[in-house]
């Protein structure tokens, strides 16, 4: 096997491009995680964002409007999650899993019944406007194009890190999950913080979905999130809700995905497609083993 075909500038570009889906969703997920809620439903939020972005970008012939609509749709999904979990105390897992099924069903239904297309969105007239690309020319034999969303997502990682660890609001968000009663005693409403966490989560997942359909690809396909939302949840657990660590975990996922794609000449694509999922599970197992070893160490 020629390793230079697997590890080169092109792989690095693919790593960044793929990882961005998980980075954005992971940032969203960690906002709810910080507020003490485990949001399994980010996969569905991404699906909704992806659908809305593709359709709006096509309908208004503008990626800006596509992105804005996806953010708005994400905001609504986040609000829905907040209402169900915070206001009505529904089981987080049931809501999450049901929301993922709901999102795929709703977008597929709309695609088939309203847009009269099935499988993926290929409008007869007009085009789905994509997010702009930053072109770096040829490096090592492959064209290096990076979506605008990639550096934007990195910026968001920094912002999230500062927000959570350096601002009072970030502190309250964390406290609303960890010590809601202490937060209440200093005159802050933990429920409000949880709502804010859910809504930010929805917005970021909407962005992630938009990037998926009008950045990473240039159309919407049924069930296109392909469980990447769950990978993002795994990255959040792995990164212990710390934005920078979640970012690194997402990059690792992106690298496994990209390297797998590059190995398709040697290993059948149906097998390389499993790499990111296997990698994610192994990541979680390694973390759990390390945590257990630490605990044992403390006891002794």
């Amino acid at each position, binding site marked *: 096997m020629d390793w230079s075909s697997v590890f080169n500038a092109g792989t690095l570009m693919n790593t960044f491009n793929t990882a961005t889906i998980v980075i954005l969703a992971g940032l969203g997920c960690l906002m709810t995680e910080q507020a003490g809620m485990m949001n399994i439903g980010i996969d569905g939020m991404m699906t909704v964002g992806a659908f809305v972005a593709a359709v709006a970008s096509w309908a208004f012939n503008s990626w800006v409007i596509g992105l804005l609509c996806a953010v708005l749709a994400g905001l609504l999904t986040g609000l829905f999650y907040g209402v169900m979990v915070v206001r009505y105390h*529904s089981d987080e897992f*049931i809501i999450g*899993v*049901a929301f993922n099924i709901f999102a795929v069903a709703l977008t597929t239904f709309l695609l088939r019944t309203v847009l009269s297309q099935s499988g993926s969105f290929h409008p007869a007239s007009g085009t789905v406007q994509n997010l702009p690309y930053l072109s770096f020319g040829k490096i090592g034999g492959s064209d290096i194009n990076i979506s605008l969303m990639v550096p934007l997502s990195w910026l968001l990682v920094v912002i999230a890190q500062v927000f959570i660890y350096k601002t009072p609001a970030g502190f309250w968000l964390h406290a609303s999950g960890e010590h809601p009663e202490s937060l209440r005693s200093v005159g802050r409403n933990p429920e409000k913080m949880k709502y804010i966490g859910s809504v930010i989560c929805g917005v970021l997942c909407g962005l992630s979905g938009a990037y998926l359909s009008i950045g990473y690809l240039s159309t919407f396909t049924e069930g296109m999130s392909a469980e990447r939302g769950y990978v993002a949840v*795994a990255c959040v657990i792995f990164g212990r809700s710390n934005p920078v660590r979640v970012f690194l975990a997402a990059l690792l996922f992106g690298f496994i995905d990209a390297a797998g794609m590059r190995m398709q000449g040697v290993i*059948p694509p149906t*097998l390389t497609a499993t790499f990111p999922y296997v990698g994610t599970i192994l990541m979680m197992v390694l973390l759990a083993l390390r945590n257990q070893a630490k605990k044992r160490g403390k006891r002794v």
Partner: protein
Amino acid sequence: MKSKERQQYLLSLAISVILALMVGALIMLATGHNPLEGYGALVKGAFGTRRAWGNTLYKSFQLCITGLATAIASSAGIFNVGGEGQMYLGALASCYLGARLTGVSPWLALPVCFLAAILSGAVYAWIPAVLKVKLKINEVITTILMNSIAIYFCSYMANGPLKTMERGVNTGTDAIDKLFRFNRLIPGSNLSETVFWIAGISLLVWYLMSATTTGYEMRLTGQNERFARFVGLKADRLGIAGMLISGAMCGALGMFECFALQNRFKPDFSSEFYFDGMLVAMIMRYKPFGIILMSFFFGALKMGATGMQSQTGISSELILIVQSIIIFFMAAEQGVVARLQLRKTRREPISKGG
């Protein structure tokens, strides 16, 4: 469940189902369809012909076994979202043997295939179960990712090493020996002899869950793991047992699907069958009797939806939307009831005072 609690639950369920169907009607209206026509086509699609009846009945049995598979794992405290993958592996293993054991008496071959199916399903469910009880790794994430792994792996096998040489078959393993296949009960429909097996397994699991000590201990573990440990139950073992049975049931369904309907393993044999049953189990809050009963209602909805799609052009996904809305309502039910009661108690003193 206490009788008052049960009454409230049944009332909420009925309201949720009706409201969700109304939302479905609104969606039809919004997308330019007549809801009466839509639901009419749905009823006709489910019960219009003998063939439709057969398909509806089979779908119900399928929902029943997958719903109970979700329920038994959930009752022991593990949420098995990975039934789809377990089903794929069970199907692949049994189909491989079903094609290889040609010449062997069906009396020997079928049990061997069945064993292979339930073992592969159970082993694949065992992995996330052990990760959950020993390492506290969230099972929802592992099981759903393992679905993708299993489906990709099986599709690789059916397109690669195990691909049949038969002409006219694009993807799939070798055909299962004719002697091992199940006969259809209503020609042209999906209803086959497998329903007796499914019924048998379902009754067994129902009995296990509601009438045995093990079932009771599992429920105790699922409801309050710390308490279960405190009274000396082996909570880890019960959780794993629940997942093993759940995986075995999914594996068995994988075999039934292929041995009765596909006649070989094809990577597209299931259209997320497990998730349909899982939704029923979630709606019925993992109560085995409720799942068995409501399987027939949701089976009719599901089968009718395909009829509705071909008759009126309304995508059958609508029923999936309706089902998830029922779950949203049911999940929020206790919170809503509590809020209503709170409002009532707040209002009462005022009305008395006035």
